[in-house]
C-alpha cells in the first residue's frame, strides 16, 4: 500500500454532492497532477461528514484542516496554497475552526459540532471511501463477521446482541436480541434477513448517510444476522429516492462477493449468504415492516395483519428478521468491542448512541450521533448551534409525522425511548 503524506477527504454525501463536490474532487486531482503531487497526496471521496450546513466539506489530513462551503473555483487554491506550499487557506476554513484571538487553527475533531458527539454507527462516515472495501477492512471492517463465523455459535451471537441491550433504531425500540431470537426459533427451509432502508420521515436522513458513508457495515451486520438466525438470503429495501446510497450498496455488494464475504462458503466456513437490493417506489407506508414485506413481494404496500409477525411469516411467508439500517450499523461494533462496552453507554433503558438528523431553522443542519441520555438542549444548542440569526426557539419536532412538537420547557429531556 502506498503511503501518502497528505490525505484530502471530500464529502460525497447527497448534500455535498448536490453542491458539486464531485467536480471539486476532479479539479483538485487535476491540480495535484499539475503540481506534481500525485505521489504525495491522495484524494478520497467519503460518506457524509454530518455538518451538511457547511457543505461542501473538504478536510485535509494529517492536520485535520476543516474547509467548508468550498467552491469548484477554490480547488486550485487549496492545492497550491495548502498542499504545495503548506499554507492553510484561512478564508475557506469553517468559521469555528479559526479562533480570532490567537489566530490558531482548530482541527476538525476539536470543532464543537464534532467534539460533543460519540460515533458508533457513523464511525466510518466521512473517514473512509465508501466505495472501497479495502478501506473498510483497514478500519476493522469484517473483523466482526470473521469472529462470529469462526469463534461463535449462532446462539452466542444472539446472546451477545441481547446482552448489549441494543434496541431497534427504527423507532419502536424493540429489543434487537429478542427479535433475533424469535427469528432463530422458527424452523424453515428458507429464512430471510431484511434491512429496512425505506427511511421516510420528513427530515430524517440518518439511514441514508450510513448507507452512503459505510455500506459495508450494513452488509456485514446482515451477514452476521443471517448466521445467527439461519438465513441464507437478505434483502435491503431502499428508497429509490436515494440514488447514491443505492449505487454504493451495489458497489459494496459486488466487492463483498469478490472478496468472498458474501455468497457461497463465506471465509471458507461453509456459511452461505447473499444480499439483494429492492427499490422502493415512493410510498411512505412501506417503512412499516409488513407493508415493506408486501412491497418486496410486489404488492401494494398495505400493512398485513400481525400476528403472525414477520419473525414467523415474513417475506414469501418465510421467517424474516427485519431491522433498520442504524440498528445493523451498531452490530459490528458490538461484536468487536463486546456487549458490556455497548451497554455501558447510554441510560438505564436505552443503551448506546442515537443518530439524529438536524433540519429546519437550526444553525448546523446535518447529522449527529450522541449517547442516549443526552438532552435535546445539548443536541440543539451544543451541537446544532441553536437558532440562526439569534431568533427565539419555538419548538422542535421529533420522530417524524407521528412524533410530537416539543416546546422550550421540554428541552432538558434526556433522549431515550
Amino acid at each position, binding site marked *: 500500500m502506498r503511503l501518502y503524506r497528505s490525505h484530502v477527504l471530500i464529502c460525497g454525501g*447527497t*448534500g455535498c*454532492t*448536490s*453542491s458539486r463536490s464531485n467536480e471539486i474532487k476532479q479539479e483538485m486531482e487535476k491540480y495535484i497532477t499539475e503540481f506534481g503531487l500525485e505521489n504525495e497526496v491522495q484524494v478520497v471521496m467519503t460518506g457524509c461528514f454530518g455538518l*451538511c*450546513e457547511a*457543505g461542501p466539506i473538504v478536510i485535509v489530513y494529517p492536520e485535520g484542516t476543516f474547509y467548508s462551503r468550498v467552491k469548484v473555483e477554490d480547488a486550485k487554491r487549496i492545492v497550491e496554497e495548502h498542499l504545495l506550499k503548506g499554507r492553510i487557506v484561512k478564508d475557506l476554513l469553517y468559521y469555528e475552526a479559526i479562533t480570532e484571538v490567537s489566530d490558531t487553527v482548530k482541527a476538525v475533531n476539536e470543532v464543537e459540532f464534532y467534539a460533543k458527539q460519540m460515533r458508533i454507527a457513523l464511525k466510518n462516515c466521512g473517514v473512509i471511501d465508501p466505495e472501497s472495501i479495502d478501506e473498510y477492512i483497514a478500519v476493522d471492517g469484517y473483523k466482526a463477521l470473521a469472529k462470529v463465523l469462526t469463534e461463535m455459535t449462532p446462539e452466542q451471537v444472539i446472546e451477545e446482541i441481547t446482552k448489549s441491550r441494543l434496541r431497534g433504531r427504527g423507532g419502536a425500540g424493540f429489543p434487537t436480541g429478542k427479535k433475533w431470537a424469535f427469528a432463530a426459533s422458527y424452523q424453515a427451509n428458507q429464512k430471510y434477513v431484511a434491512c429496512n432502508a425505506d*427511511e*421516510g*420521515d*420528513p*427530515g*430524517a*436522513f440518518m439511514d*441514508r448517510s450510513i448507507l452512503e458513508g459505510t455500506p459495508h457495515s450494513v452488509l456485514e451486520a446482515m451477514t452476521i444476522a443471517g448466521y445467527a438466525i439461519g438465513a441464507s438470503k437478505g434483502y435491503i429495501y431502499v*428508497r*429509490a*429516492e*436515494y*440514488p447514491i446510497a443505492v449505487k454504493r450498496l451495489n458497489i459494496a455488494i459486488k466487492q463483498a462477493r469478490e472478496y468472498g464475504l458474501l455468497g457461497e462458503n463465506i471465509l471458507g466456513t461453509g456459511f452461505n449468504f447473499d444480499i439483494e437490493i*429492492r*427499490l*422502493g*417506489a*415512493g*410510498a*411512505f407506508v412501506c417503512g412499516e415492516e409488513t407493508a415493506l414485506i408486501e*412491497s*418486496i*413481494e*410486489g*404488492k*401494494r*404496500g398495505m400493512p398485513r395483519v400481525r400476528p403472525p409477525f414477520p419473525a414467523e411469516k415474513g417475506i*414469501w411467508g418465510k421467517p424474516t428478521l427485519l431491522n433498520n439500517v442504524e440498528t445493523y450499523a451498531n452490530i459490528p461494533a458490538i461484536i468487536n468491542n463486546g456487549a458490556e462496552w455497548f451497554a455501558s453507554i447510554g441510560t438505564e433503558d436505552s443503551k448506546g448512541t442515537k443518530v439524529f*438528523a438536524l*433540519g*429546519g*431553522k437550526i444553525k448546523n*443542519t*446535518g*447529522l449527529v450521533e450522541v449517547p442516549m441520555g443526552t438532552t435535546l438542549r445539548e443536541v440543539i444548542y451544543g451541537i446544532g448551534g441553536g437558532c440562526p440569526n439569534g431568533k427565539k426557539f419555538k419548538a422542535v*419536532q421529533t420522530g417524524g409525522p407521528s412524533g410530537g412538537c416539543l416546546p422550550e420547557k421540554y428541552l432538558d429531556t434526556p433522549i431515550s425511548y
Partner: protein
Amino acid sequence: MAKLDLSKENFAKLQNFIDENRSETMGLMPVLHAAQEIFGCIPLEVQKYIAKELSISVADIYGVVTFYSRFSTEPVGDNLIGVCLGTACYVKGSQAILDRFKKELGIDVEQTTEDGKFTLTATRCLGACGLAPVVTINNDVYGKLVPNEVPKILAKYQKEE
C-alpha cells in the same frame, strides 16, 4: 404531451429484463422499475404485456402502479422536476419555490408542459434536509434555493435538446 415510445425494441428490452431476473421470488416491483425506466411510464400496453408474461391480471399490476408515486401511467416530460415538500424544506419556504415553478411553467403539480419538456411534481422528503429547500431535476439536486433562481435553472434545461 411527451412522446411515448412503444417500439418493439423497448418491449424487447423489457423482455430481456424479465428473462434475466425471472424467479419465484422476483416479485412485480423490479419489473415495474425496469418498465418505468425503459418506457418512461407504464401505460396500458406495457401493463398488458407484463400481465401476460407474469400470468397475473392487469388490475393486479395497475393497483401496484397507482400505489407508488414513482410509477406513472402517462409519459412524463423530458425533465422531471421534484420540489421537496418535506417538513424541513417546507419550513424553509419550498411552497414558494413550487409556486414559482407553477407560474414559470404555467402548469400545476402532476402536470406536463405542452411541449413535453417539463413535468412538475411535489416529492416527499429527499433526505437532503441540510440543503433545504431542495429541488431535484432529473438526477441533479439544487439546494438552498430561493424563488428568484427558478427561471435561471429552468433556462438551463430549456436549451438542452
